[in-house]
């Protein structure tokens, strides 16, 4: 967890300017105001001080001998983008000040300046710095809450269920000889329902707690076709139940992509699960792969109930579920949102075309890996 810093009582200001008179007047004007001020006469020295001083705000002269003001600004952004920068400029170089602001500098002050002008610009700059730091602190806090919530859900909900299930396993074994067939069936149903519940909690936990971008650390060269075949295998029991046929149309010579096999399989299983879920009995699903230039395209199409136009924009949101789910089907409302996140973590995109009553086509585009 990165440390949460807020603006200190005596904000730290660094002045980088080659003119001694400018440095001196900055010092004189600002030190009266409870600011800590340090100065440097060129970019190199300024950047040295920057590292250990960690200022809140830096005043940079654009025109200096040696390292230019622009270079100094760039190094400051790279070092810590939350540091507010203000450029000092002659009247003749207002254009370059505008240029600097386009690149992220917060403000500029033309010289020569009056003490009040400097105070005002600095005050505004520090307000900005305060806001930036507060936003970061809030964002961190939100992240922590999410993580805590996940831990609580996991421990308080999952543990008891796990304990119940563990004991059901034992009971089922102990009573194996004593129970009638219908009693055994009841025990099995109990186990099944608890297992579904645990699965559901796991899925929700993933939505809440896991930063899917983490999978990027484990990316490898992988080929898609085996993944698709594996996904079809996983989904098979469900297709049999509804008498649904999946046809597979893969392009043979398809480039490898850079990705994570586990989550990509999950993404495709999710799409296929939905296709089955929203299909009528005896429906048809087609999954295909093909390469278009630098992209590999995976399409999953079904002839099921389709999605109403009004709903299409919501289907990739957390906990959204379609309102025309066929009878007997259940949805946790997170499959597509997880799928989308997985695909985006792979630098790909997913979109859908659908017509109510006719079916849906989900299309994934993934960039092929650069190495040939």
């Amino acid at each position, binding site marked *: 967890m990165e440390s949460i810093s807020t603006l200190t009582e005596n904000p730290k200001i660094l002045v980088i300017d080659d003119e001694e008179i400018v440095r001196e007047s900055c010092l004189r004007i600002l030190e009266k105001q409870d600011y800590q001020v340090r100065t440097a006469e060129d970019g190199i020295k300024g950047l040295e001080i920057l590292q250990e001083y960690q200022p809140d705000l830096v005043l940079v002269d654009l025109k200096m001998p040696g390292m230019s003001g622009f270079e100094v600004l760039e190094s400051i952004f790279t070092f810590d983008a939350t540091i507010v920068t203000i450029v000092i400029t002659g009247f003749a170089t207002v254009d370059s000040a505008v240029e600097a602001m386009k690149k992220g500098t917060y403000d500029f002050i033309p010289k020569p300046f009056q003490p009040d002008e400097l105070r005002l610009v600095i005050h505004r700059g520090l307000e900005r710095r305060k806001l930036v730091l507060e936003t970061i602190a809030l964002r961190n806090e939100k992240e922590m809450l999410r993580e805590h919530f996940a831990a609580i859900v*996991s421990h308080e909900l*999952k*543990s008891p269920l796990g304990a119940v*299930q563990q004991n059901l396993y*034992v009971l089922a*074994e102990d009573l194996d000889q004593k129970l009638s067939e219908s009693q055994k069936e009841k025990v099995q149903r109990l186990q099944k329902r608890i297992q579904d519940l645990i699965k559901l909690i796991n899925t929700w*936990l993933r939505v809440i707690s*896991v930063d899917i971008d983490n999978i990027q*650390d484990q990316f490898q060269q992988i080929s898609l076709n085996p993944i698709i075949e594996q996904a079809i295998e996983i989904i098979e029991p469900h297709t049999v139940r509804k008498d649904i046929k999946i046809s597979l149309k893969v392009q043979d010579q398809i480039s490898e992509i850079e990705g994570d096999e586990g989550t990509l399989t999950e993404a495709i299983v999710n799409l296929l699960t939905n296709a089955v879920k929203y299909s009528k009995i005896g429906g048809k699903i087609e999954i295909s792969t093909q390469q278009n230039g630098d992209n590999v395209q995976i399409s999953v199409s079904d002839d099921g109930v389709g999605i109403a136009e009004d709903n299409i924009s919501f289907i990739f949101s957390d906990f959204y579920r379609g309102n025309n789910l066929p009878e007997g089907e259940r949805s946790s409302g997170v499959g597509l949102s997880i799928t989308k996140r997985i695909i985006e973590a792979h630098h790909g995109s997913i979109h859908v075309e659908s017509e109510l009553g006719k079916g849906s086509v989900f299309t994934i585009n993934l960039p092929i890996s650069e190495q040939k």
Partner: protein
Amino acid sequence: MSKDVQLLIIDDDPDFVEGIQSILTKAGYAVDVAYNPKEGFKALKSKKYDLLLLDIMMGRGAEGVMVARKINKDPVLREIPVLIITGIREQMAFLFPGQPIHPRFLPTDELLEKPVEPDFLLEKVNHLLELAKEKKSN
């Protein structure tokens, strides 16, 4: 053969412990239980165990991790195979940000998710015991 094989469970959920303990006892293992890390260490120091079944989420967080790390630092205890039984794999990801999802705490450990089916549990326990035996005879 399992008669004199001595297992230790460290887990703070008595109901869950009950569940796995009876599976293991029925399979013929001798099973001791500790309901917190402190008790667990006392047990580990007092007796020789062939395998440890360790919960991760105990007490005020991932105290099981501390147990695993402490064991790993002890030249005698680190010889004991450790089977980790935890609530959820994904959870490991935010316990160890930036590390692989299945962190290897100890050279011989295995990771199982709660709840665990009896046959699967016995298979894993057996496997770890076999591995430890092989290692010893080498």
